[in-house]
Each structure stands twice: as structure tokens, then as C-alpha cells.
């Protein structure tokens, strides 16, 4: 039973989401403020939380700060932010703060659930893809879901890890942003390509020697991204 942390200040919205998620088989911990949410994460049940749904508009500590603090505690917890539609700067800031995905309020239950499922799938061990590959100093263990660079482990959140797995599975092949959105985020075609760009940016920051001159995740102008060639 997936365990979701819900951070939303409006009581009705929070109760509604809790109701829907419980009905569909999720365990829900709800928090009205960022402080409360961080306390829950640090508490005894914190270990069991598998995903956070985070409203960006919170009283006190705002959603971006909560997201950053979650990332300092754990790199592996998927974070889906709730944003007001079209507040583009919020989306960009949220992605920079380390969110994996976003949904726009008001959101219907099926859409929210689909996003939660997709995010959780990214965090699961992937289907049995065999061997661990060693590419240009980068060791990707596809079964164990660990990445080491020159022997040192690199901690990657699930979205970035999936993105790396997707790209490195076919070194040299160019993936469009839409393809990556569909395969990694499971978005419909209308997905926001900034999700991809933001995740690539974060991935490079952790992986590349010089993030501005990436070796592993390269940009192909006008088309998308590819892994290598190394």
C-alpha cells in the first residue's frame, strides 16, 4: 500500500485528496504546513513515506523551501507539486527546487492518481534489464539502481535515475523531449518539456565534470538529448 505525504493548507482540498487517495488504496499522511510535513518526514513514520504531493502556496515556509529541505533529507522521495495553472515561474522554480513533476490545480482525481502512479513506478526497481554497464567512467547498475562515477557513488532521485537509464540504454540515440516525457514521466503528449530540461540540468550537475560542457547527457539542438557518444 503506497504511502503518500500530502502537504496542502486548504482543509477542504486536503480532505478531498485524502478521501480520494484512501479510497484508491493509498496510505495518506496529511500536513497543513511545510513545517508539519518536515516533522512527519523526520518522525517515526517518515521512513515509510514513498511520495510527497506538495502545494506550492503554503503559509509560513513556502513550497519551494519545503521541496529543497525534502531534497536535503532524501534524494529518492518523488515530489509532485501542485501549482496554479500557467504560473510558469512557479513551475520553473519548483523544478529547480527539485520537484519531479507537477499538476495544475484544480486537478481531477484520475489525473492526480496517474501522476502518482507514474512517479512511484520510476522509483521501483525496473524490469529485469540485464547487465550493469560501464560507460566512460560511469557505472550504471540497472538492476540495483545505483550509479557510481569513477568508483564514487552518485545519489540520484528516481526521476533523474530513470532519465539516465532511458538515455544510456541506447547510447548515441537521440530522444526528443516528448519521447522522454512519455517514457519517463508517462505524460500525455501535452507534457511540459521544461520538466525534461530541468531534470537534465539537475542530472548534469551531479554527473558531469563540467556541467556546462556535458559528456554524458548531450544536447542535440532542435531535437532533444542523447547519451554520449563518449
Amino acid at each position: 500500500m503506497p504511502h503518500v505525504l500530502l502537504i496542502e493548507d486548504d482543509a477542504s482540498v486536503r480532505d478531498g485528496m485524502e478521501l480520494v487517495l484512501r479510497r484508491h488504496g493509498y496510505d495518506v499522511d496529511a500536513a497543513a504546513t511545510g513545517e508539519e510535513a518536515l516533522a512527519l518526514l523526520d518522525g517515526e513514520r517518515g521512513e515509510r513515506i514513498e511520495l510527497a504531493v506538495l502545494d506550492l502556496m503554503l503559509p509560513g515556509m513556502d513550497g519551494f523551501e519545503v521541496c529543497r529541505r525534502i531534497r536535503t533529507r532524501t534524494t529518492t522521495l518523488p515530489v509532485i507539486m501542485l501549482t496554479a495553472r500557467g504560473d510558469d515561474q512557479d513551475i520553473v522554480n519548483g523544478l529547480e527546487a527539485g520537484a519531479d513533476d507537477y499538476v495544475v490545480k484544480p486537478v481531477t482525481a484520475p489525473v492526480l492518481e496517474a501522476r502518482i502512479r507514474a512517479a512511484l513506478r520510476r522509483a521501483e526497481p525496473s524490469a529485469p534489464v540485464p547487465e550493469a554497464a560501464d560507460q566512460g567512467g560511469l557505472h550504471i547498475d540497472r538492476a540495483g539502481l545505483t550509479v557510481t562515477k569513477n568508483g564514487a557513488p552518485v545519489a540520484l532521485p528516481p526521476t533523474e535515475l530513470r532519465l539516465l537509464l532511458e538515455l544510456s540504454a541506447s547510447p548515441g540515440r537521440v530522444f526528443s523531449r516528448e519521447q522522454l516525457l512519455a517514457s519517463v514521466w508517462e505524460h500525455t503528449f501535452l507534457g511540459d518539456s521544461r520538466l525534461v530540461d530541468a531534470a537534465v540540468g539537475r542530472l548534469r550537475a551531479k554527473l558531469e565534470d563540467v556541467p556546462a560542457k556535458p559528456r554524458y547527457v548531450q544536447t542535440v539542438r532542435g531535437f532533444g538529448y542523447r547519451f554520449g557518444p563518449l
Partner: protein
Amino acid sequence: MPVHDHSTPLHTEPAPAPSSKRRLHFIGGLRTRLVVAFVLVALVSAVTATALAYRESRTAVLQRAQDSFQKDFLARIETVVPNVDMPPDTQSLASLATRVSEGLSGAPLVVARYQDLKATSDSLADDSRISPQLRSAVSTLDRTSFQRVEHAGEPYLVVGTPVTYENGQTSGLEVYGVASLRPEQEATTGVLDAVRGGIVPVVLLAALLALLAARTVLRPVRELGRATRRLAEGDLDSRVAVRGGDELADLARDFNHTADELRASVGGLRDQEARARRFVADVSHELRTPLAAMTMVATVLDEDADRLPPDAAHAARTVSAETARLSRLVDDLMEMSRFDSGAAALNAGEIDLGETVRASLALRGWTEAVRLELPEGVRTVADRRRVDVIVANLVGNALRHGAPPVTVAVGAEWDWVTVTVTDSGPGLPPEVLAHVFERFYKADASRTRTRGDGGSGLGTAIALENARLHGGTVEAANRTDGVTGAVFTLRLPHRHHKEELTP
């Protein structure tokens, strides 16, 4: 969505007419007119004064010359005639003429006549200057007469007198004197020359004065003109300096006053508009939180409706459906208010237009309902989400208000890519065509909305705003291929690289 959100063509705004359409009007300009008027006045007065003075002085000079010549001539005749034998012969006539001539200053030509005899003081001279009229005047009227004649370009005074005896009886002897008026003419011409020489500086002076006058008048006029143009271009702070207390100063004050009023009323309107926009944005925003809760739990109603009593089930489904509609309406309102406040931004990338249209239709389950003409490889740089919104609105509209078959075609021209949505419905009456892109416009007020109609009334307006954000347009028209129906055409700039986009 309103009944038939169909519309007038709305191209991208044409560039405003060049504001500085200032022709160089040197001819007919105020300055030219002033100068011409001053010079004309100066010339007319100079010429009139000269003409009057000339006439007066000429008359005076000639009169004096005439009087003195006549007096001398008659006196001379008085002196000479007693020595002439009567009746005279040719010789005595000649001696008479010569002696009269000799006694007069300038030795004028003197002609003496007696019946058919004639003698002149200078036999070489031409006596045709003595006109028959003068002669007949002298002989018939029997008194001293004179005439001014022009001969070979020279003015002459001709005086003729009959010689009478002391008792007053005529002798038949006539004496004529011809004196040149040249010195007199030269004297009066001198006056003219002096005037002519004086006119040039006078005219120049007049022109100079005119220029100075024009400057003092024209400078404020020009300033006023510049300020007016700035005002017309939208600079509501455009003002002119008020100098002095003349009519131009009044005009400047009036201009400033008008500009003040204009600024105040435009400012008031802008404030009102901004408040109205903010209000719409705030309302939409405030609606969103309760809607978020309702939208979230609406699924529960849907899921459990089957287990409810029929009335409750119906109510539950209605609440769920209308919540979704309200949610779309609020979304559209938010979107519209972002366009109004200029907060809408493009998130553009290279897209395949055919693929985008296909996906857009597939997402809404419309693929079966629509005939597609989607060529491969029509690519441009655009915001995928916004293109989807446009396509969804136009196709949704055609499906709701037009009649099948509905055709969606993608095309590419040199600098445009197009998506054309054609239906086979009744088409758009002209009065509807003019309003299709207005917000909440309803073509047929009596038409009731069916449930799940799905439109917010903002669809075409949002489609148009989205197109404009790309530098494109949406046009509405009726079919021209002999079938009734409406045609909506989305036109986006054909861009090949992201760099070409200037949002």
C-alpha cells in the same frame, strides 16, 4: 461555448499609419505666405506712392516747361513779327522762322506758314511733328494751341499760334514751335530710377520683417504642432510652454488643458480597466480553491452514483459534470486574464504540426469524428500546449455547432503554417461573423445549452489570443466551395529555428 463561436477574420494588427506624415510644405507654408504678403504690401505701397508722385511731378514739370516755352515763344514772335512784310514771301517766312528760333533757348524748330507757303528754321528738320489736328485747331479756332507728341521715341511740345494784327484781325500767318521735352523727361525719369533703386532694399527689408514676424508666430505654432503629434502618438504628458498673453498663448493654454483632461480621463479608464481585470483574476483565483476540493471529490460521486437511489444518482452525476464545466470555465477565465494582463508567455519548441493535431484530436476522442488531411513534416516553432488549445477549441466548436463532415487540414505556405477546420453546417451569417471572437458571444440567444456542452464561451477568444501570442491569427469565414459551412483557419508564422521566435 457559445452557439457558433465563429467569426470575422482577425489578422495580425496592421502596422499603425505612419504618424509623422509631414510633407515639406514650403510652398503654401505659413512662413512663405507671410513673406509674400509683406513683400506684396511693400511693393504695392511703393509702386502706388511712386506712381502718384511721378504723375504729380511729371505734370508739374511739363506744365512749367510748357508754360515757359509758350511764353518765350509768343514773346519772341511779338518781337519778330512787326519786321515782317505782309503778305510774306517764302524768304521772309524763312527769316521769320529762323529769327524766332534763334531767340529761343535750345534753338527749337520753328515753322512759319502763310496760306500755302511754309518755311522752317532748319530746312533739314522734319515738320511732321506738327499734326494736322494742331494745325486745324490753330487755324479754325484761331488761338494759340499746343500738343505733346512722341516722335522717334522722343517727347516734344508743339505750340502753334496764329499771328493777329493789333486790332485783333487774323493775318493768316501761323507760327509753330517744336521744343524737345527731353530734359523734362529725364528729370521725371530720374525720379522713377530713384524709386526703382529704393524698392529693392524696401522689399528686402519687408521680407526680413516678414521672416521675423513669421518666426515669432511660427515658433509657438511649431511647438504646438510637435506637442500635438506627440499627444496623438500616445504621449499623454505632452505639453507646450505658455509665453506671453497673445492668442497663441491662449491656444497653448487650451492645448495643455485639453491634454490634462485627456490624461485624466485616459488614466481613469485605465485604472478602471485594470481594476476590472484584477477583479476577474482575483475572482477566478478565489474560485479555484473550493473548485479544487470539489473537482477532487467529484470522482467519488461518479464512482458511487450507481449505488445511489435514482434521484440522488442523477444529482450526483450533475454535480460532477457541472463541477468539471465550472472548472473549465475558471481555467479559461484565468487564461483570459493572463492574456489581458500580458502575463501569457510562450513556451515554444519545434513541433510537427500534423502530429500535434493528431494527438490533440486523439486525446479528446475525436479522431473518428473528423476527416484529416495531415501532410507529413510540416514543422514550425510553437508552443505545443497553446496549439493544442487552439485546435481543441476550433474542432470542438465545429463538432458542436457545425455539421459533419468536419475536416481538419494542415498546410504550409512560404511563411505561414495553417490548420483549417471546415464544417458542413449552416455557415455563419454576417452579423455572427463579426462577433465570433468576442467573449461569451452567443450567436443565438434563444438556443439553450445542452448538458455537457463543454464550452465556456471563451473558446474562440482564447484561440485567437493564443494565435496572436505566436504572431499568428485565426480567421473565420464561410465556405466558398459551393457547400454551406464555416471555415476557421489558424495561421502561425512558419519558423524553422527557435531563435526566430521573438515573443
